[in-house]
């Protein structure tokens, strides 16, 4: 009898999972159609998605890009046998004709390179702050960027931003010297008082004088020519960039042991948080005018930027305070036991941890602030929403609603979504785990 027992000598090669378990089909089986209730839900949801898309997509893909007016759009759509402008198709001609205006407002078109350059430099200036890999040398650009941006957008004499920038150098030099001679409190006071005197009384005549000696400058652009997304980004970036440091200081002030400092910070934060942004904007646009001496010309956009910054700072202070409160007391005590002074402890131990905890809150505040910039249309600034009203006043485009709002919403989405993705990247990068 022959022994027919079978012993396999080699390992059976691994086979791919059956088609029903792997790939797209498997994924669908596992996640979408695993049992009867899930299958029913999937079908219902699919039905909704398809019905929504089938009504929106034909509207979005409408061949009206080159139309010159709403009437023309309608005739194009009618030729195609579509339903008409409401449901049959969008009228994208308005975006083709006005997209530059929606981006730049009334900025002179031959000077568009200036805001574009400013926007590009903004990316470079932000890189060392946002990404670890970027060259540290770019930090110099970051420091001068606000002044460069001001000069690029508004133009005019180059000496004004330079002399204003010199104020910061004066503040630093004043702090260092007075600190050596008369102690740190006097140093702090000197670093505040000296530049204030410089800015209030010296900058304006000095920059005029320097300009008369060396007239370097570019074509000045009035604030009323700014508009569209450029305005939203300007207000948003200013608010974002300034509200974080101011907010940190306010949060620290609120936790301070000095009663007056604490009182001032608490009052400021609670007052600003207790008032809607639109009220502050009305104050900026109307009340300040009445307080200021008649004939004074205090730029409306500047006033709005200040108000938006103050508003965001108060919220930022509370977000940062949340981060501070979340730190275990041991961290503060550890800093003290190392013999660090207050600022060193904050800089090296407290803030890095507190800010990391607050990243989601901080970025939410940024995103909220950026979207809130559309409120300026209520006080007559031509931000993207204000411009859409103006575009509709043109009889060629009167009656167009969704295309404009859709375009504006889409651009806002790009900005806000990138900010939110960046915050997630930052959280992953800073995750230290425990």
């Amino acid at each position, binding site marked *: 009898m022959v022994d027919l027992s079978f012993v396999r000598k080699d390992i059976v090669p691994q086979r791919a999972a059956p088609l029903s378990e792997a790939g797209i089909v498997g994924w669908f089986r596992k996640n979408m159609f695993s049992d009867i209730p899930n299958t029913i839900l999937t079908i219902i949801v699919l039905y909704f998605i398809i019905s929504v898309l089938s009504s929106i997509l034909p509207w979005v893909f409408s061949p009206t890009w080159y139309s010159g007016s*709403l009437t023309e759009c309608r005739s194009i759509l009618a030729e195609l046998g579509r339903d*008409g*402008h*409401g449901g049959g198709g969008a009228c994208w001609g308005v975006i083709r*004709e006005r997209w*530059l*205006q929606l981006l730049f*407002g*009334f900025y002179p*078109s031959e000077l568009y390179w200036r805001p574009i350059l400013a926007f590009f430099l903004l990316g470079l200036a932000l890189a060392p702050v946002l990404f670890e890999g970027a060259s540290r040398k770019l930090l110099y650009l970051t420091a001068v960027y*606000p*002044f460069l*941006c*001001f000069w690029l957008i508004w133009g005019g004499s180059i000496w*004004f931003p330079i002399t*204003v*920038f010199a104020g910061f150098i004066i503040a630093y030099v004043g702090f260092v010297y007075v600190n050596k001679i008369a102690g740190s409190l006097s140093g702090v006071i000197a670093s505040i008082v000296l530049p*204030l005197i410089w*800015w*209030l*009384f010296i*900058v*304006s005549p000095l920059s005029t004088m320097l300009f008369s000696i060396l007239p370097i400058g570019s074509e000045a652009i*009035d604030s*009323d020519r700014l508009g569209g997304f450029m305005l939203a980004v300007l207000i948003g970036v*200013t608010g974002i960039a*300034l509200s974080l440091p101011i907010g940190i200081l306010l949060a620290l002030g609120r936790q301070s042991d000095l009663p007056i400092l604490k009182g001032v910070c608490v009052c400021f934060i609670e007052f600003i948080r207790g008032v809607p942004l639109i009220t502050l904007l*009305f104050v900026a*646009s*109307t009340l300040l*005018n*009445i307080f*200021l*001496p*008649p*004939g*004074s*010309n*205090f*730029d*409306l956009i*500047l006033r709005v*930027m*200040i108000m938006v910054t103050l508003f965001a700072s108060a919220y930022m202070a509370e977000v940062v305070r949340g981060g501070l409160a979340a730190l275990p007391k041991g961290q503060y005590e550890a800093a003290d036991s190392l013999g660090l002074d207050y600022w060193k402890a904050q800089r090296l131990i407290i803030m890095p941890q507190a800010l990391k905890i607050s990243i989601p809150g901080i970025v939410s505040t940024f995103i909220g602030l950026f979207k809130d910039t559309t409120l300026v*249309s209520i*006080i*007559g*600034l031509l931000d993207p929403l*204000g411009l859409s*009203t*103006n*575009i*509709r*006043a*043109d*009889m*060629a485009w*009167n*009656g167009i*609603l969704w295309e404009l709002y859709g375009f504006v919403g889409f651009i806002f989405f790009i900005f806000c979504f990138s900010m939110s993705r960046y915050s997630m990247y930052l959280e992953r990068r800073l995750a230290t785990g425990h």
Partner: protein
Amino acid sequence: MKKSAFFGTIAAATFAAGFAAAGTLEDVQAAGELKCGVSTGLAGFALADANGVWDGFDVAVCRAVAAAVLGDGNAVKFVPTTGKTRFTALASGEVDVLARNTTWTFSRDVDLKFEFAGVNYYDGQGFMAPKALGVTSAKDLDGATVCIQTGTTTELNLADFFRSNNISYEPVPIETNAEAQAQYLAGACDVYTTDASGLASTRATFEAPDDHIVLPEIVSKEPLGPLVRHGDNNWGDIVRWTLNALITAEELGVTSANIAEHSANAGKNPEVNRLLGTEGDLGGMLGLDKAWASRAIAVNGNYGEIFEKNIGVNTPIGIARGLNASWTDGGLIYSAPFR
């Protein structure tokens, strides 16, 4: 931008304030531009084109004043104002003249301390309804839902009209004209009410304007005109008489086509001569030169030309002159004589 610019501006503002002259005319001439408050966008009345150039019926008044005062119809800084910010903008001096289809009312004139320079458009609140609704008069609107912009005088006028006619209605409050158009077309309300000029421009944008009817009743008086601050009568006179010059030019047949010819030499008609400064010195009495009115008319033409170009029957808005015809044609547009 940094806070520093803020301080710099405050400093600049403080210095500038020291030199500010008392009269608006001197301020405008020193600045070299007229700050004119206009609407942020209203079909036919104020709008900026794709290049950012402002145009419209109200804008034309600004340009005429700028031409009279500064000699250049483009020397205007247009300040877009909303219904909420317009009066403070004027009161605080942010604008020198407000031409933002503002209704001349007692309280605005007296209580808010403004001075209306005249009327450049006689408007009134009307109703628009779909023809399918089958109404021919606003009095048939018992129980109708009405789309109405909130916070305007139209809301009060509507309540008054329905109460005095003993009929009921249901208001649908709406914030902007664009929203109202969308709601009305979507059938959220039976009737849309706003100023008749607004109804005309709204109806003109519809896919099928003939399916909608503007009802014959006009339920309010809305005389719209440019206004200035109380207290500077000379400046008020300049704006008033610039508007009057446009109106008189139409009455006397002075147009943008023949103004050069009329201005060159004194003609037969003494009033034309006085208007255009070829005889007498009316401009000198205003603190301007002799040719002020001639320049104001040359920018956009006379009142009739401005009307036809921006909102007249040949434009998409298509408003007939009606009440806004010259008094010689049976309308209300009437200027005091130049003498």
